[in-house]
């Protein structure tokens, strides 16, 4: 049994490395358009994985992704022409990390949908305050952002995605990962068995936001100009949540699959038929919630169990505390 699992893990690892090797080669072998396409897809993969890092195991639905993404974008707008690119991107991550510590610390007591709507409001609050400051205090709206080549952006995001995969993988298998799942499973019992639920929740929230901030900072360099409306777009809160739900939170591949499928669809449709995309997105969401409680991954596992008689039905449902 142990050998079999190892063999399975090795084959997964080989597949992942092959995909990564292909992605690394993409800028050399394909058209510029492909690089842009893959860059945008990877961006959603990064956001969705980050979201799932916190919300997957703990069951808290965070809708603050856009706030952390926007914090990254603004960091790039202010520091992009002062600092070298890697440092600037790192600053974006740190800014979001700090913002998440604050939001996390004040939302500790909120559960379930209260947490969701609070985080949603935090995006709007930041957006409106920033807008006001720009108009009345600074006297000008928005800022230009330093431009970086598409292939550089592509590689940075690829690195972020790899970091996320590695972090998620090791976190899941660690003591810390057990603590996170126990919070999602029964928070009160977790606290009474010695888990520091406050620290685990806030730190994981901040860690996931760190990656969102990194992504925002590097993606900003492709935007040329940003303002509060562009940077704090609520869609960046909705999309990762829905993509991860669609893919399934049972394992690490769920969010990746959800993000790849939807962002590819988005790339095809967004320029010519943006509202067809929204319509499909909405419909698929409704159907997923209704008929695929564990997402695509859950469906795949069910099929596997049905036809192969395997014993891999460990997917857990979406939970809300």
């Amino acid at each position, binding site marked *: 049994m142990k050998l079999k699992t190892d063999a399975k893990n090795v084959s997964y690892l080989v597949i992942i490395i092959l995909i990564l090797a292909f992605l690394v080669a993409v800028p050399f072998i394909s058209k510029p358009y492909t690089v842009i396409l893959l860059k945008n897809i990877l961006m959603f993969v990064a956001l969705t994985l980050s979201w799932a890092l916190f919300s997957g195991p703990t069951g808290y639905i965070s809708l603050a992704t856009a706030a952390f993404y926007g914090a990254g974008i603004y960091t790039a707008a202010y520091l992009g022409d002062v600092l070298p690119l890697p440092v600037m991107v790192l600053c974006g991550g740190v800014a979001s990390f700090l913002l998440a510590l604050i939001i996390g610390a004040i939302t500790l007591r909120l*559960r*379930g949908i209260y947490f969701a709507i609070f985080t949603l409001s935090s995006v709007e609050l930041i957006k409106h305050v920033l807008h006001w400051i720009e108009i009345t205090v600074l006297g000008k709206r928005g800022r230009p952002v330093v431009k970086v080549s598409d292939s550089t952006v592509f590689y940075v995001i690829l690195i972020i995605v790899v970091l996320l995969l590695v972090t998620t993988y090791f976190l899941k298998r660690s003591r810390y990962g057990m603590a996170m799942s126990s919070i999602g499973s029964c928070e009160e019992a977790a606290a009474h068995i010695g888990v520091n639920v406050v620290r685990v929740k806030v730190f994981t929230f901040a860690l996931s936001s760190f990656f969102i901030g990194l992504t925002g900072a590097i993606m900003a360099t492709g935007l040329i100009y940003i303002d509060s409306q562009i940077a704090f777009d609520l869609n960046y809160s909705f999309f990762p*949540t829905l993509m991860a739900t669609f893919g399934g939170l049972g394992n690490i591949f769920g969010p990746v699959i959800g993000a790849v499928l939807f962002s590819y669809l988005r790339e095809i449709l967004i320029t010519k038929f943006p509202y067809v995309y929204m319509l499909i997105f*909405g419909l698929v969401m409704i159907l997923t919630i*209704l008929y695929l409680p564990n997402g695509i991954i859950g469906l795949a596992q069910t099929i596997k169990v049905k036809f192969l008689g395997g014993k891999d039905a460990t997917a857990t449902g979406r939970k809300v505390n």
Partner: protein
Amino acid sequence: MISFINIFVNGLLLGGIYAITAVGLSMQYGVARILNIAHGEFIMVGAFLTWMLHTSLGINPLFCLALVGPILFLLGYLVRHYLFKTLRERTPSPAAFEGNSMLMAFGLLFVIQSLAIFIWGKSIVGYSFMPYSVYLGEIRFAANRLVIMVAAVAICFLFYLFLTRTRTGKAIRAASQDSDAAALMGVDINRMLTLCFALGALMAGFAGVLVSMDVKLNATMGMEYTIIAIIVIVLGGLGSIPGSLVGGFLLGIFGSIVSGIEPGLTLAAYYLLFMVLLLVKPSGIFGR
């Protein structure tokens, strides 16, 4: 002094709209446990239907209440019957249902919004309705806002009478207070929840009609109204119509004061107020 009274009056006029915006959602979340994030989308649809009826057929917007309301009621009925009811049957726990129904409402939001854009386009539209002021002594009222407020309060009042005086209304309230006991008393809970959700949509329709008399419309306007509705519910208490009225007027006056001081910060102040309220009354915020 006059300017102070004007701010107050403006707040009251605004409050009427806020109240009727919130009443529907208050019912949907208070009774059916569905935090319908697409509530604002229902309002948007109501507003666009009114605009269409008024500009193409020349129907008086006030009369549109009688036409648009039933359409939205039907829409709400179908949504609850085919979507949320199924979800409820397939979800193991009430807590999971709340989270999942919110996510499903997000899906609904995208669907309704994109369909609205297919039908009505992305541009901003509107019509003018009673574009003049009336004076009561020194105090100035925008005529359309006055009509809106009176209509909003009247609708809330009638809805309140329906809930407290009729058999069906009492059954709905019983379903919200103690579903088990209500089921024992022979109330068909599922039918009541569907009816209640549909009534919430009806109220959204009415709110849409009234909103269209005052502001310009576009297909992405819904979210703002959803947020306002949630804030009012938090202020006034869940599932209570007098509560929504009080909450609506409170928020209206609050908004009017803030925009008197610094107009650019009105929305920010709403969000701040809302977040503070959530934190101060953490668990029982919606009166549970």
